[in-house]
């Protein structure tokens, strides 16, 4: 347990450096991309005086390092400036939109891990049989079809042809009090099961659309790595020792085989923070991915930097969690490669 704690602390320590580096990078890039933030914020008909004032207020005449220091001083206090689109504090926007996307991605990630490992394990248990072949064909389909295509298809089928699921938004009934911003959690905390069920129904379509590619990848990965492990001598040794086949598969083979799957899902979770954009647009889902893309299109400097930073933080946290899971699954990671 002690080694685990050191491992986590080390990772957290490194993360601080990564985040500072990331913020510098994105801060510079946001200011290099073409377009005048003043014009974007105030409109093409703004007076030169107003534009001038905007630039002074936002330190745009100062050198890049000075600008960064101004930004950093605010950021440490949780002040990321004002968004030019929503005309609100960026911090408030993020507080509203981030939990929505996280909820969506969490739903998709659970689907990926459970669905992917289950299908992959089934496939590996009965190689060459009907179930294996169907899983393999379906996973090709899953990998080849982008999330937004699934999203549109789901919407047509389950919201229009056979309307059993809500098409847009996060919730239709009155929202529970925002303790955390996660609707599922908030409604449970408030004891409001109606809101919980409604919010859950709103997650099903976008979450599944977002997850399907990942489910397919995870299933293929699990299958491959289980097949590989099943042919190893230790499986023969365990069976030869009289351990029943079911247990050998469910415990002795699944655990080493799940490690690469978990890494794949982790990468996918990171990718989803950006990929969620199209799904969020299609389902009018108020998430951070949509907010971030809009910020980039409108050169909303404060929002861009803050969103990228938040995504970076989320990415780092996800990675630490995945490393912890992976090192639990495979002790070699914890005991040999803990320095990286």
């Amino acid at each position, binding site marked *: 347990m002690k080694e685990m704690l050191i491992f986590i602390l080390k990772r957290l320590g490194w993360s601080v450096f990564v985040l500072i580096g990331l913020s510098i990078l994105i801060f510079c890039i946001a200011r290099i991309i073409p377009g005048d933030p003043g014009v974007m914020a105030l409109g093409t008909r703004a007076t030169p005086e107003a534009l001038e004032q905007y630039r002074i207020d936002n330190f745009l005449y100062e050198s890049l390092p000075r600008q960064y220091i101004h930004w950093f001083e605010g950021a440490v206090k949780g002040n990321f400036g004002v968004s030019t689109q929503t005309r609100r504090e960026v911090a408030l926007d993020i507080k509203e939109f981030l939990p929505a996307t996280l909820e969506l991605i969490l739903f998709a990630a659970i689907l990926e891990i459970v669905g992917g490992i289950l299908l992959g394990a089934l496939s590996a248990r009965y190689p060459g049989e009907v179930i294996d072949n169907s899983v393999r064909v379906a996973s090709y389909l899953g990998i080849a079809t982008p999330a937004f295509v699934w999203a549109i298809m789901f919407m047509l089928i389950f919201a229009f042809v056979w309307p059993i699921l809500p098409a847009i938004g996060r919730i239709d009934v009155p929202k529970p009090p925002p303790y955390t911003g996660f609707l599922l959690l908030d409604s449970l905390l408030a004891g409001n099961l109606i809101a919980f069920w409604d919010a859950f129904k709103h997650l099903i379509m976008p979450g599944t659309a977002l997850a399907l590619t990942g489910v397919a990848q995870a299933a293929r990965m699990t299958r491959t790595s289980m097949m590989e492990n099943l042919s190893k001598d230790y499986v*023969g*040794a*365990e069976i030869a020792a009289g*351990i029943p086949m079911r*247990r050998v598969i469910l415990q002795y083979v699944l655990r080493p085989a799940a490690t690469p799957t978990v890494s794949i899902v982790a990468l996918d979770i990171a990718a989803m923070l950006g990929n969620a954009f199209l799904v969020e647009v299609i389902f009018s889902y108020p998430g951070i991915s949509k907010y971030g893309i809009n910020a980039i299109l409108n050169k909303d400097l404060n929002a861009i930097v803050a969103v990228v930073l938040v995504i970076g933080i989320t990415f780092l946290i996800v990675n630490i969690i995945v490393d912890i899971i992976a090192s639990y699954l495979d002790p070699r990671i914890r*005991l040999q490669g803990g320095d990286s």
Partner: protein
Amino acid sequence: MKQQQALLDIKDLHVHFKVYGGYARVLNDVNLSVFTGEKIGLVGESGCGKTTTVKSIMRVLPKQAVIAGGEILFEGQDVLRMKDKALNVLRGQKLSMIFQDPVAALNPVFTVGKQICDAIRFSGITKGNNKSEIRKLAVKALKECSMPDPYRILDNYPFQLSGGMRQRVCIAMALATASSLMIADEPTTNLDVTIQDQVLHLIRDLVEKNNTALILITHSLGVAREMTDRIYVMYAGNIVEMASTEEIFEAPYHPYTKGLLNSIPKLTGDGIMAGIDGYLPDYLNPPLGCRFQSRCSYASEYCGKGKPPFIEVIPEHYVACYRYSESWQKNKLGV
């Protein structure tokens, strides 16, 4: 020895492998028997079916293998027709196997203790699931394999141990569930030369102490000579010669056995030994008759006619070769 019932009796075993382009007929009529407490050597070059034979006994053949015929009687019961449950009990309590590569034979992500304890637990030799009793048995097994500090070893992962230690763990695992037949599939091939001897002695001492029968697979005749009472020589899926270890070394009959013995490098010899020219036959299209004929310097038209009979040349010494069949016929007919 003839009077008592064999502990293990393999009769006419045929095993085929599904491959692209048909079936590879790997095991072609293997007969082998082991008596209680006896140490058997199974000798032959790589790819001749030694491992396939013992994996058939344990029923841990790869998926593409098909048992095409024969029976494997263990204490009179046919292992090949056993239900899974009975088979697991048999594997747990009567049979054990040590694999060639101790690195591959231990699961990398579980502690040594978990693996040994599970083997003990599922063998059913302890009543119920008494953790401390199981652990005690595991420690005892490790101690018998002269492992220092067995309590610490139990909490280690395989990758934290050296090759020799890992093989000792495998032996301990095989030993922990008192068995009546231990199968060792080239247990020292992947070990350091200095460790090989220790591990072999350990195996021999343990089987002698517990009166366990041993099937030792090896391609090293030196190891077989030191370790076994009786040797089966295998070539291309057939048993070609069987005799007591002494006999095999002093008076081999089969041309293949003679070739094998001539291939042993001697410390005093000069240069590389003779060896045997040619390769194993194609299992997809094995030659009619004797499978060794293409490499045999005594081959005649006789050899392609059919599978050579297994002849008892002198008492307790069997050879599958037409040469002895002819002489036998001549002797018998008095020509």
